[in-house]
């Protein structure tokens, strides 16, 4: 069966995606890019170029290079007067006042131009997939009227495609986040692209999307932000050097590239350097442009552009008769939504709601379209949708830390096991405390259950081997089993619902972990330092015991002092880590001395290797008494 693709046919760029093994994948075009410029050029030799290649010859051939066909599709000549002023190619009135592009005397409908873009996307997709592509879902803005939708569908037909469906861009974006699975939600989609800005409010329920309102600005986008930086750079330069770089096409191009790069960098850092050596020259010699741009300055330069986004959001809410409080989800679309100030505005306008932005905003619409295509061709149903564990799973180990056996986002079904040991001599039982969460300490995580494995044969600490296995089946049911390797004794617990947490709970727990990461790591290190010091004390004590009278008095006394002091610190839950580490290190040296000086022929090896090295980890201490462990009945 041929694959069906999802196509985001954009004003400036287009993206195509496909479902592969149940996952949407963006297809890389023949030039190696994920975005394809929605540009078609007709050369003087009669050649037709689409995408990047068409863009490269645009300045040589402006009147025969069509961009932004989307602004004209399905519209009448008298409706597009404002758009005509912005384009270098010839737009004329065709049959029934429809828009036509006049290319060297030949008339093309906008849908024919869009068809050429679609054809390239689909051809590249076929090459990438190694199979024919015939079916597609194509997206359009929510405000497109019937004529514009029909014309877009026609573009697909002209391109030889079977257009499965035309869907709204905001709907596609919501699909990419799986919001169609919610029972009843109000979603605001904020789409700030390269050259257009759209706000849509959707009502989602049981897989049905209803557009409640749309608003926007057809001429506002990332390019405007770039231009502000270009103007600022050029004006600063003109003030210092008296030369307007914008008059020099080469300099302007370098400026524009540098401005876009700076804008992108300022989404992740608060200051960036713009360096354009030898940008121009005059009688006095070459000139360089070298300056720093802070995020604060960038925000000042673009504050009014960001503010222009506010009006349409208010408008869309008012038209839908809603307030920010009524919104359940916010979805960000378009590369410019990566700008921190834009995100801050969205948060401010939507009552502080955390927006969905984990899917690449340049690709989220095409991904949603691909998902829709997969649903329509039945592919999505056929594929087993593999679930993942939303949070990490593990057990509590010595010192109250959580030892993870299954990391979050692991695809299920899955089975993981590890070997643990005892923390005390002659410990005959271990408590297995099953935990879920991202924090380092057990007490900060969610308890899923407890059970106790008894009947472990008495042995020095660290010697018994207890296999703990976590098994999550395809239905998300977790079974935890602990088994003593020596006696074969086994105990287990089955927990359902470990994967059925609300998204809000999961997000909160993950955010918590991030927020406390530093402090948690420090606490965990403390616990580990205490565990290590305690183990060291234990080993040396055994060493002394086995050496008996062969250990010199002086060394024995020193070692015993150190051991006592370490035990005291460990018992007091001391946080003086420097002291503890110092004592451990002193004790270690002493022990090495004892072993090396020939007293310890028989003893050192066995005691030294107990437990600490290899795959073993110390398990829950015996003195952790919990009344509520739940062995499997």
């Amino acid at each position, binding site marked *: 069966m041929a694959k069906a693709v999802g196509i985001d046919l954009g004003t400036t760029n287009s993206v195509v995606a496909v479902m592969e093994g149940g996952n949407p994948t963006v297809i890389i075009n023949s030039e190696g890019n994920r975005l394809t410029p929605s540009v078609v050029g007709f050369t003087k030799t009669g050649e037709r170029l689409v995408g990047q290649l068409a863009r*490269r010859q*645009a300045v*040589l051939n402006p009147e025969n290079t069509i961009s932004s066909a989307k602004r004209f599709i399905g519209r009448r000549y008298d409706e597009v007067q404002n758009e005509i002023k912005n384009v270098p190619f010839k737009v004329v009135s065709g049959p029934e006042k429809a828009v036509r592009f006049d290319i060297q005397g030949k008339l093309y409908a906008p849908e024919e131009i869009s068809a050429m873009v679609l054809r390239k996307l689909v051809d590249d997709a076929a090459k990438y997939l*190694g199979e024919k592509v015939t079916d597609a879902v194509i997206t359009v803005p929510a405000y497109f009227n019937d004529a514009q939708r029909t014309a877009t569908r026609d573009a697909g037909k002209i391109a030889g495609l079977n257009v499965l469906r035309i869907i709204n861009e905001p709907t596609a974006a919501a699909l990419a986040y799986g919001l169609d699975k919610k029972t009843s939600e109000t979603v605001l989609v904020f789409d700030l692209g390269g050259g257009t800005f759209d706000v849509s409010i959707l009502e989602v329920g049981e897989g049905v999307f209803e557009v409640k309102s749309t608003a926007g600005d057809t001429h506002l986008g990332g390019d405007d932000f770039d231009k502000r930086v270009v103007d600022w750079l050029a004006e600063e330069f003109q003030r210092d050097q008296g030369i307007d770089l914008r008059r020099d096409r*080469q300099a302007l191009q370098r400026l524009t590239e540098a401005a876009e790069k700076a804008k992108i960098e300022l989404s992740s850092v608060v200051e960036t350097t713009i360096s354009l050596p*030898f940008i121009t020259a005059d009688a006095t010699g*070459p000139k360089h442009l070298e300056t720093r741009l802070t995020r604060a300055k960038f925000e000042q330069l673009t504050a009014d552009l960001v503010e222009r986004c506010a009006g349409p959001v208010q408008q869309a809410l008012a038209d839908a008769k809603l307030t920010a409080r009524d919104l359940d989800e916010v979805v960000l679309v378009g590369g410019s939504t990566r700008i921190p100030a834009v995100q801050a505005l969205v948060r401010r306008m939507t009552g502080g709601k955390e927006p969905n932005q984990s899917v690449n905003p340049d690709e989220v619409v095409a991904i949603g379209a691909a998902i829709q295509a997969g649903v329509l061709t039945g592919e999505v149903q*056929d594929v087993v949708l593999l679930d993942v564990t939303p949070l990490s799973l593990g057990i509590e180990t010595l010192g109250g830390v959580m030892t993870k056996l299954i990391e979050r986002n692991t695809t299920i079904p899955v089975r993981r096991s590890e070997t643990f040991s005892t923390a005390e001599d002659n410990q005959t039982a271990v408590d297995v405390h099953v935990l879920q969460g991202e924090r380092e300490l057990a007490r900060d995580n969610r308890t899923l259950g407890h059970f106790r494995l008894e009947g472990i044969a008495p042995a020095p600490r660290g010697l018994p081997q207890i296999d703990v296995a976590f098994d999550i089946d395809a239905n998300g049911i977790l079974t935890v089993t602990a088994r003593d390797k020596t006696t074969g004794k086994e105990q287990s617990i089955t927990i359902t619902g470990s994967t059925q947490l609300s998204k809000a709970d999961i997000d909160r727990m993950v955010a918590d972990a991030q927020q406390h990461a530093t402090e948690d790591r420090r606490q965990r290190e403390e616990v580990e330092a205490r565990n290590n010091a305690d183990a060291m004390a234990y080993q040396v004590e055994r060493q002394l015991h086995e050496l008996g009278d062969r250990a010199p008095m002086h060394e024995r006394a020193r070692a015993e002092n150190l051991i006592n002091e370490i035990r005291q610190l460990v018992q007091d839950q001391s946080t003086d880590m420097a002291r503890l580490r110092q004592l451990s290190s002193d004790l270690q040296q002493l022990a090495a001395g004892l072993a090396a000086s020939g007293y310890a022929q028989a003893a050192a090896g066995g005691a030294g290797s107990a437990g600490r090295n290899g795959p073993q980890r110390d398990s829950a201490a015996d003195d952790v008494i919990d009344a509520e462990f739940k062995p499997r009945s």
Partner: protein
Amino acid sequence: MTPAEQRSDENSSAAPAEIERLKQELSRAHDMRLRALADFDNYRKRVQREQDSAAQAGKRQLVLALLDVMDDFERALAYATTAPESILTGARAIHQRLTDLLQAQGVVPYTSAGQPFDVTLHDAVDAIKTDRAPSGVVLDELRHGYRWGDEVLRPARVRVAQ
């Protein structure tokens, strides 16, 4: 016949619909498994195909960034005519080392000036009305184009006669 056997006979005769349903389910499950295997196989093949280019893709970002610096260096050399000869010779030697280093990686510049404009090799920045060259011929390069093996790594940025 033991009671147990009897019961099992009764069951099988009583549920032909159940058998039919299970058969359908099995064939569906079988089909799904084959599809998943096929999907994975196709994926594996493509990953294999892309493995070589993936290794290059890793280098690409670095090389492209390096070419930007190379451009600046060449701009500097172009202006350096008034510098003392000794400095100039040294600077040219550094430039040569950088060129050789790129060449060792298979990154080679190509000449565009005087050639007919070609979208696969050139990115037009400006069209110049002139008699110096026939229309459609590259007048000069504002930035060199580079090949990487068979591929055009970076098109030349050019001005074209019109």
